[in-house]
């Protein structure tokens, strides 16, 4: 890592014409542009941030959490002149960076596992995004992949992009334009845009590009079979049985819902009530790009156009969004309502960033490093408050409240000894579930039509028998109810509850399993799933159940832990020097609880459930684009005052609790608390204030101090 000596004349940046730096490094050129603007605006830049402020900010901004005590102390103690650039190089691209940037993308792309059509795909879509961040895939390539990937969930998690908006292809297009081109088209979906130049026809022409991406996956097999079953019905199969076959069919296909995106040529028509002169209602629309060079009317050309260096907004938008991530406010605000009249607050700088983004070939890590290396970023946060609409000249970054994820992940850092690690168990569980669905798909495909029909008939037969039994039980229940025999009602009702599971079991036995056996016999099973998987039966009872939505208990796949985990924690506890058996047990219990809970936000469901700490602090509900907020609210203060996580933080088994008690002197203990929470040593005034409290209240004072600091705004804000 080399820092070029600062040397920059006006001639250098006046002569700048894009691409690599021609005089100073790129970040020095950014500083020079800012300094020119300070001079023009008669503004004094802020003082350089002290080490302690900087280390806390760098960790929060790059890896999304406060530094650990050791990380903070090491940076403050280091006398190396290049410690800051070194730390930036080390952090950008680390696993913590992946976790942090994931929240940025999850908010933009609305990763949402709550809705039915996204439950299965979301973990894999998330993994796709994390892998792109980890491998630092060029941004334009990443976007092209999102826009063009079709196929099944087990082929690529990127199909999550279209599955997310299943049934809403028009909305999907306006979201695409808003996220990647910073332009709002959604108003033009129903009428010409009232505030911008876009017409409804422009809208439909753009939507025509991606209209072929069909999220309503209907395997061909299904349609054929349905017809076949209808015919069979006509040929004298009893009505009740045909009825049963429809249910059997639905149940058999259920696991395959929402598992694929099919690219199929389809015409997009204007709405029936289209009211402008430039086209007729219900007319078929030909694809056409909204600006810049046109593209042939297919999806690949559309993705090329979107991400092309000729596209006037693609590079601007991502450069501006990342600038905002780093400095707290964009050069263009709002970041996604750009029109022909939009002007950046420092136009020359915006142009420079855009050119850099292209010159770096959309290497986002390199771009971010460039911003972190600027002197402007490394200054103190501005004391003045920037009001909406006010121009900001970046004398330093803006004071920001930590995002919900940053606050949560900082708590995780103080509780979990390995905060950035991804929990393998969760990834495994998601993969297992996907494999199950994939196996269903392949097993069904392995059977020919007659075999499938035989299977369905068998299912329908037991189902109709089950229905008969249920009717009889229902009548008996009604009798028991009349007789006010509550116990009998309960008992009989219980007997009816197994009905659906019986149908599922039958489908497994009569359809999936025979299909799987055929697949194994033909050698295709080991080809697709590997020999190990092919040696297994279609599903153990547990797996089959879980695939259908209920939890498998006591196995490694779910959130449950097996004996091995407990033994691992036991060993860890002993390594930490815990000897007492009771304490060891408590430590294991704490770790078991914390392994499932104190995980980084990126490894929890997206979004976290209602009422979760993350949601209280403003994590996006992932329903609409960029819906996170940093507003203060009552549940937040209550959470910090009385919530369970503040409690976990002072547990003697958590990271902080342990580290505090390992220190022997009062000063040492106070130092640990300050370094761990504020990433700095206490001032003399703070020491003087705390000393008598420690003398009076003893060990309780340390708990008091931790609680007190958690409830300061200094903790929540990034200076």
């Amino acid at each position, binding site marked *: 890592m080399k820092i070029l000596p600062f040397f920059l004349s006006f001639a250098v940046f006046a002569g700048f014409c894009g691409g690599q730096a021609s005089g100073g490094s790129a970040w020095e050129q950014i500083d020079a542009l800012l300094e020119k603007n300070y001079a023009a605006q008669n503004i004094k830049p802020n003082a350089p941030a002290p080490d302690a402020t900087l280390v806390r900010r760098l960790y929060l901004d790059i890896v999304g959490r406060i530094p650990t005590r050791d990380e903070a102390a090491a940076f403050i103690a280091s006398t190396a002149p290049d410690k800051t650039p070194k730390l930036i190089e080390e952090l950008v691209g680390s696993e913590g960076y992946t976790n942090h940037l994931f929240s940025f993308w999850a908010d933009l792309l609305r990763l949402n596992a709550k809705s039915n059509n996204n439950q299965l795909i979301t973990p894999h879509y998330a993994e796709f995004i994390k892998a792109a961040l980890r491998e630092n895939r060029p941004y334009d390539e990443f976007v092209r992949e999102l826009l063009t990937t079709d196929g099944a969930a087990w082929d690529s998690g990127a199909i999550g992009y279209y599955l*997310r908006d299943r049934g809403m292809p028009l909305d999907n297009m306006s979201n695409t334009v808003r996220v990647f081109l910073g332009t709002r088209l959604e*108003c033009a979906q129903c009428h010409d845009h009232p505030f911008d130049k876009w017409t409804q026809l422009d809208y439909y022409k753009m939507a025509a590009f991606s209209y072929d991406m069909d999220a309503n996956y209907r395997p061909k097999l299904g349609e054929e079979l349905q017809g076949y079953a209808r015919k069979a019905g006509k040929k004298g199969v009893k009505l009740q049985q045909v009825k049963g076959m429809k*249910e059997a069919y639905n149940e058999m296909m259920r696991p395959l819902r929402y598992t694929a995106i099919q690219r199929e040529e389809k015409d997009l028509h204007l709405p029936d009530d289209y009211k402008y002169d430039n086209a007729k209602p219900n007319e078929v629309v030909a694809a056409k790009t909204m600006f810049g060079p046109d593209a042939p009317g297919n999806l690949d050309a559309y993705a090329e156009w979107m991400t092309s260096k000729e596209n006037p907004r693609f590079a601007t938008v991502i450069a501006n969004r990342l600038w905002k991530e780093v400095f707290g406010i964009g050069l263009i605000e709002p970041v996604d309502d750009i029109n022909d009249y939009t002007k950046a607050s420092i136009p020359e700088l915006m142009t420079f960033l855009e050119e850099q983004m292209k010159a770096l070939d959309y290497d986002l890590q390199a771009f971010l490093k460039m911003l972190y290396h600027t002197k402007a970023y490394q200054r103190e946060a501005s*004391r003045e*408050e920037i009001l909406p609409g006010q121009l900001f000249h970046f004398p330093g970054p803006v004071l920001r409240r930590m995002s919900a994820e940053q606050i949560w992940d900082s708590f995780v850092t103080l509780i979990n000894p390995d905060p950035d690690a991804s929990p393998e168990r969760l990834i495994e569980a998601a993969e297992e579930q996907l494999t199950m669905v994939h196996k269903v798909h392949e097993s069904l495909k392995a059977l020919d039509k007659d075999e499938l029909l035989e299977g369905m008939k068998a299912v329908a037969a037991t189902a109709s028998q089950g229905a008969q039994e249920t009717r009889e039980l229902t009548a008996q229940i009604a009798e028991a109810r009349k007789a006010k025999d509550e116990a009998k009602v309960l008992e009989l009702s219980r007997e009816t509850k197994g009905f659906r599971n019986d149908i599922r079991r039958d489908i497994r036995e009569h359809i999936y399993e025979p299909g799987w056996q055929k697949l194994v016999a033909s050698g295709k099973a080991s080809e697709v799933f590997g020999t190990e998987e092919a040696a297994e039966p279609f599903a153990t009872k547990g797996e089959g159940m879980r695939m259908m939505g209920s939890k498998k208990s006591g196995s490694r796949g779910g959130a449950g832990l097996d004996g091995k985990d407990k033994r691992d924690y036991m060993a860890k506890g002993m390594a930490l020097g815990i000897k007492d058996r009771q304490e060891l047990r408590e430590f294991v219990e704490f770790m078991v609880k914390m392994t499932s809970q104190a995980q980084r936000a990126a490894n929890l469901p997206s979004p976290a459930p*209602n009422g979760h700490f993350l949601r209280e602090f403003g994590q996006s509900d992932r329903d609409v684009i960029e819906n996170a907020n940093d507003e203060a609210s009552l549940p937040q203060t209550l959470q910090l005052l009385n919530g369970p996580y503040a409690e976990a933080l002072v547990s003697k088994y958590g990271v902080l609790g342990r580290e505090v008690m390992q220190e022997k002197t009062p000063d040492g203990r106070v130092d640990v608390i300050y370094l761990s929470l504020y990433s700095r040593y206490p001032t003399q005034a703070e020491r003087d204030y705390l000393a008598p409290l420690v003398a009076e209240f003893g060990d309780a004072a340390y708990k008091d101090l931790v609680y*007190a600091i958690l409830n300061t705004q200094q903790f929540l804000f990034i200076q």
Partner: protein
Amino acid sequence: MSLNQLSELSRRQFAARAASAALGVGLLPVDRLFAAGAGASKAVNPNVRAKNVIYLYMAGGMSHLDTFDPKPGHEVMGATGTVASKVDGYHVGEGLKRTAALMDRFAVVHSLNSTQGAHEQGNYFMHTSYTLRGTIRHPAMGAWLVHFSGKGNDTLPGSVVMGEGSRHPGAGFFESKFSPLMLNQPDGGLQNSKRKDSVTEEAFNRRLEMARHLDQPFHDTYQHKNVRAYRDLYDEALTLMKSEDLKAFDLSAEPAATRERFGNDDFGQGCLLARRLVQHGVRFVEVSLGKWDTHVNNFVEVPERCDILDRGLSALIQDLEANGMLADTLVVLASEFGRTPKINGNEGRDHYPKAFTALLAGGGIKGGTIYGKTDETGAEVAENKVSIPDFNATIGYALGLPLDQIVFSPSKRPFTLADKGQPITSLFS
């Protein structure tokens, strides 16, 4: 803090807003671009009685045939019998005996018609009057109510949602302060509102004093709005923790006999909590009862649901009446859709948005009204079709909310409380 206290400011704001809506003044010209058109403005309630709403949501799609729109004697009824209600000639499902005796308090709308046949979409439509879209989140009724007419008690949340709230649209595009408080359990109280038993009051106060002292230099340096907002909220949190209003969440303050009457389940206790919350000034409380998605085994599942619903709903109506609260509290019973008259091969019923039933009571509703009709099998609306926006406009009308008032989302898109819905004014006395 007195009960049902509406802050002066919001009262004035509301008056101003209501006036501009009624007189058609104060609108930007651009509104006209989107307004339903001159002359299409909606009815304004001359006699507003409802101040609060208790909204009972039957999640999963409540079978209309087996509950409030039975077809006695017809084969579509399967194993479900019926029972005569307090309203002449009107029968309800036999699982609803207690409610049957109170039907003269309700207006029954038999002719709901939704365009959304999947749970997520149907639920969203029912709650917002708009179809689910990928580009915007619309506010639910509770958020509209608080937006237009303020909180009933400054210490407590404006609206509360209990039960299956994970997909609730909440405040939609409104600021987060309009979000309902989500409670998973009716008897858990307000989350984190109690000091931990392990922390003495003395230690608690010591910590707060410490925090304030240590944070002063930061506050001196950064005099930002959001920094100050936190300090103010700590004051509010401490007020709340000591507040009498917190008792609103405490079900143990109710006599055991009352708790028993509502049923020993989350829905029943939720109904009771809803009454307590309304008493303390929470203006909109939603309580949901799930598992109505009876694709399989409808005739065993529905009676079980009915049992819970019947107990909770009848106890709620009687309790509100006894407390003199029914006059100004609108009780709504709604679901995302009904279920097929046709019984499927699994002794179940499937989704059916084409025709289904909802109930209203209290808050100015004329009891004993039967509105709309389905055909002999409950498959088609035969009379007075009511769209979901119409139904929601009726709730807004009961509350005297300005149905015509256009509100712009942050993305500058225009919306109204019940989209283009027209209230059913004949349901009111």
